């Protein structure tokens, strides 16, 4: 870099003059330009290890060091945002930032977390934000790093989660060290992910970086929350700070208030809900914070309305009498007013869809049902990726953040409830309480089937795990769809941090790093983080287990090792049946067996305590106990369990 500096044209001047240069070029006559006279060649340096080299006087002073560089100032800005960690796989295009974080910044807030894959870095940020409510930072190469990170960025984009990412790059072609830095340079690094980040920028000066860094954080944290990306030139990181930083300042951060529903729409929503005979509340990503849960409980209780929790976030206590998630479809088919809160897929929730040779669908709601939705996603749309789901014909669409709107909605509901209406609503309460108890009992009855099966049933796995953690301050940092949702059906969830929802974009490879990231956030609160880990998901980037061990991130991982990409086994089975051929061959290309992967050995090789594989259900409880003892010492542990498919 010293060589770069010595011969550099000031980059700002370079960019400033570019337009003028281009104009001159356009106006110039089409005659061959005279080749400028070559600069005189400097005298050849004396050969190394020669007396001249050791004793002679250099012809000029070669400045090789600098006290403060641009990356130091960048760390000042990052620190001002309260960012606790930087997750990164090291890369030379951000070596300046890397070194400033660990030395100038003292490796504290942010602390550098070593990751083995950029997809892991971003997914760790995803899981961390689900618990902490704010982003950590991710550093990556602007080229190969962002390419690796792309799927994880997309997941976070779909899941409305803030990701704060900085990519390194080298813009000035004359400063790139051949050949690697040419391959690691790009004109527009953000282009490859621009379809699924909320905002990106390419700052060209340190003041520009400062403003854009604060602006990016603010944009990422304003609902709908999403990833942001800054691409930072290596020159800007590595060159000395001009004037020793006398003119630099860190802009202040004031987060934007989340958008709230307008008073007229909120009052109308309240009127419809109060008047409804069978209202239903459906929450998906409704609660952004622990307060969101309490606000939804308050609204549901005011209306005595059932809640269907789609658990994109932990929205509603699982054993609250009004939690009617297990009866959701029945309630939807009977309701006259639906209030959706930050729903990912309104249409899909209100329709059945049949995946046969003829794809058909039909509404499951009654004709005339009133549909209200409150969601911030309406405020931000992009075209290319289709995660916005099918168009829904809403009666009242409130483009606002649900959690921020709930207080005024609940207040309006309470204002409109007459005494007689309140009495009528109370009659619903006993019915729903009984139904909630009945759902729990039905789940327990269903879980009893195949109780002693080997491979172990996912119901047994969930019950054994619950027995060991229920008296702790636990946090389930994985999704539960692939274990037939047993934890949500059998356990009691009543705190926001006890569940973090899914990936958003259904991109596999999210689970393990998101769990480690969430566990990283939980560490300072002393929580017991628990991850039910799908085997196929772990194999995308298992190196994140090493990251957990290296940074002493306490996390209990229980493998749901069904030895297959089981969702795809079923998909291939559908095709084989449709064609009436080879119905016994769906495992080809979809199984992860022969040989079975020994996840305990894999984890042990990365420094984790690990046991398994366990296929006798009687051995599972004691193994989990032993692993929890390790996790309580502040380390990760893994139990490999051979399980039923779902």
């Amino acid at each position, binding site marked *: 870099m010293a060589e770069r500096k010595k011969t550099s044209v000031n980059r700002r001047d370079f960019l400033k003059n570019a337009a003028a240069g281009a104009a001159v070029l356009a106006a110039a006559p089409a005659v061959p330009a005279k080749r400028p006279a070559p600069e005189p060649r400097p005298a050849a340096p004396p050969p190394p290890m020669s007396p001249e080299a050791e004793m002679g006087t250099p012809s000029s002073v070669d400045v090789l060091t600098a006290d403060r560089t641009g990356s130091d100032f960048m760390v000042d800005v990052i620190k001002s945002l309260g960012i606790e960690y930087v997750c990164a796989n090291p890369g030379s295009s951000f070596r300046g930032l890397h070194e400033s974080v660990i030395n100038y910044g003292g490796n504290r807030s942010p602390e550098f977390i070593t990751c083995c894959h950029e997809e892991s870095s971003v997914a760790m940020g995803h899981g961390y934000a689900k618990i902490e409510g704010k982003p950590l930072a991710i550093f990556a190469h602007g080229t190969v790093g962002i390419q690796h990170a792309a799927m994880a960025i997309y997941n976070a984009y779909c899941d409305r989660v803030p990701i704060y990412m900085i990519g390194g790059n080298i813009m000035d072609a004359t400063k790139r060290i051949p050949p690697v830095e040419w391959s690691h340079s790009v004109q527009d690094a953000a282009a490859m992910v621009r379809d699924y980040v909320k905002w990106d920028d390419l700052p060209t000066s340190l003041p520009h970086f400062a403003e854009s860094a604060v602006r990016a954080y603010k944009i990422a944290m304003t609902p709908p929350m999403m990833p942001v990306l800054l691409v930072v030139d290596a020159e800007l990181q590595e060159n000395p700070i001009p004037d020793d930083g006398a003119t630099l300042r860190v802009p202040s951060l004031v987060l934007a208030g989340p958008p709230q529903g307008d008073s007229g729409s909120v009052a109308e929503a309240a009127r419809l809900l109060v008047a409804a005979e069978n209202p239903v509340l459906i929450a998906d990503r409704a609660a952004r914070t622990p307060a969101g849960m309490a606000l939804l409980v308050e609204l549901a209780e005011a209306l005595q309305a059932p809640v269907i929790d789609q658990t994109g976030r932990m929205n509603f206590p699982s054993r609250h009498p009004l939690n009617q998630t297990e009866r959701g479809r029945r309630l939807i*088919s009977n309701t006259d007013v639906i209030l959706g809160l930050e729903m990912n897929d309104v249409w899909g929730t209100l329709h059945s869809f049949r995946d046969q040779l003829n794809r058909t669908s*039909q509404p499951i709601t009654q004709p005339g049902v009133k549909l209200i939705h409150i969601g911030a996603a309406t405020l931000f749309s992009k075209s290319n990726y289709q995660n916005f789901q099918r168009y829904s014909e809403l009666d009242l669409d409130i483009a606002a953040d649900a959690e921020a709107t709930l207080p005024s909605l609940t207040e309006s509901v309470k204002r409109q409830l007459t005494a007689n209406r309140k009495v009528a609503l109370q009659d619903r309460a006993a019915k729903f309480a009984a139904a909630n108890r009945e759902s729990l009992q039905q789940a327990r009855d269903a879980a009893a089937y195949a109780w002693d099966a080997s*491979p172990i049933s996912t*119901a047994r796995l969930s019950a054994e795990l619950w027995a060991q953690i229920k008296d702790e301050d636990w946090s389930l940092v994985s999704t539960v769809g692939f274990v037939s949702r047993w934890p949500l059906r059998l356990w009691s969830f009543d705190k926001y941090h006890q569940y973090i929802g899914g990936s958003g974009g259904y991109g596999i490879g999210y689970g393990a790093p998101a769990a480690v990231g969430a566990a990283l956030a939980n560490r300072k609160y002393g929580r017991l983080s628990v991850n039910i880990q799908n085997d196929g998901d772990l194999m995308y980037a298992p190196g994140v287990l090493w990251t957990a061990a290296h940074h002493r991130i306490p996390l209990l991982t229980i493998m749901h090792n069904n030895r297959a990409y089981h969702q795809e086994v079923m998909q291939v089975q*559908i095709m084989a049946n449709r064609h*009436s051929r080879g119905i016994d061959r769906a495992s080809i290309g979809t199984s992860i067996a022969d040989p079975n992967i020994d996840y305990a050995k894999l984890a042990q090789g990365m420094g984790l305590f690990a046991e398994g594989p366990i296929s006798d259900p009687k051995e599972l409880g004691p193994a989990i106990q032993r692993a929890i003892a390790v996790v309580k010492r502040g380390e990760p542990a893994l139990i490999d369990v051979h399980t039923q*498919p779902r």
Partner: protein
Amino acid sequence: MNRSSVETQPSAAASRRSSYRTSGFAIVGCLLLTAAVALFLSERSTRAQAPAQAPKPAAAPAGNAKNGKQIFEAQGCFKCHGSEGQGRSQTAKESAVPQIAPTRLALPAFLRFVRSPTGQMPPYSSQQVSDSELTDLYAFLQSLAPSKVEFPSTANAQNGQRLYASYGCYECHGGEAQGSAQTGGSRLGPIQIPFASFVSYVRQPAGQMPPYTKKAVPDAELADIYAFLKSRPEAAPSKGIALLNQ
């Protein structure tokens, strides 16, 4: 892919299909199963109220049975009444569902009932399904005959267990036939429906279950699988399992 003219759906459920395949078994909620009781009661009521003028079954309805089959599937009639309109008997947990193929109602009474059903059956407005379409549906129902498949005494449960695994039944219904809330595969052990209904469903399932044709699975092998499912034990009472009472 031949996409239905009733409802074309290229992409909205793509991600859902990728991660959450729900089958018709699970989609059939308690409501829809119990709702069908209304039609059964109504049919009985209709016959009881006017015994002397019981309508003659329409021998040759004007509708198009082929189109009626499509309407039967698109409108979800199969969800309560089964893929052959065969209905089902009452069990400890689920209400009975009436057989509607063939229906004993005359076409006008059939139209009236679908528009304004009693009990819990959801009404179908003319916006959802026209009179002409209901006539086609009626023709389809009248064209169906109850299945007469007999369960062979030679069925081999052990071979059925092998086939259950190799033909992929376990994928949605679990290795022990325990079912799954995620796949939508219902619990099958021990199987509760008659062999004839089992065959009928497997050959032409409602909902999401992929069909198993005779070409892929002969009747004799289905009998073995049925014998295996019949041999599955009942679950232990959950009250007696400490871990399920936490």
